[in-house]
């Protein structure tokens, strides 16, 4: 995973990376409630956890989860425009991953929270064409008018 140049570049450009080995820092595992390896946790600049995922993922899926975590961090800071842009980038750059429908859902929520009252209905409509068989499409279906 990490020898991959795309992964290394993405991490280098976007994160302060910390590697914690179970044998070296078991107390840090407890502190962050990590119960399995690998566990990846994304914290925002204030140290608030915004995303976590466990288990191995292929490169593209791994990158999509990192990008989703950055979007969640912006959402958590109520930076609605940045969050929407980051979520839409996940959909655009990683369209075949599990992160994409989740990002499409939260892009709509970010747009709505940014003041666009049409955002949720538009998102529900998009889900009819994209990712219709996902949990996220079901969640968005309540927004359809």
């Amino acid at each position: 995973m990490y020898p991959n140049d795309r992964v290394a570049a993405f991490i280098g450009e976007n994160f302060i990376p910390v590697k914690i080995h179970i044998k070296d820092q078991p107390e840090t595992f407890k502190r962050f409630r990590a119960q399995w390896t690998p566990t990846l946790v994304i914290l925002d600049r204030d140290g608030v956890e915004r995303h976590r995922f466990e288990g191995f993922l292929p490169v593209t899926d791994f990158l999509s989860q990192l990008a989703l975590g950055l979007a969640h961090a912006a959402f958590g800071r109520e930076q609605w425009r940045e969050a929407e842009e980051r979520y839409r980038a996940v959909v655009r750059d990683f369209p075949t991953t599990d992160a994409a429908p989740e990002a499409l859902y939260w892009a709509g929520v970010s747009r709505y929270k940014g003041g666009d009252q049409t955002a949720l209905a538009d998102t529900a409509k998009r889900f009819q064409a994209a990712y219709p068989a996902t949990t996220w499409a079901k969640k968005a279906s309540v927004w359809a008018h």
Partner: protein
Amino acid sequence: MAISWRKDVDAALAEAKASGRALLLDFNAAPM
């Protein structure tokens, strides 16, 4: 391209706050 992994979480938290970047914590058990 090598990743500049840190090992001290609290130092990394301070670095993240100062730089405005997010943190990525990788909990692993890979052979050292």
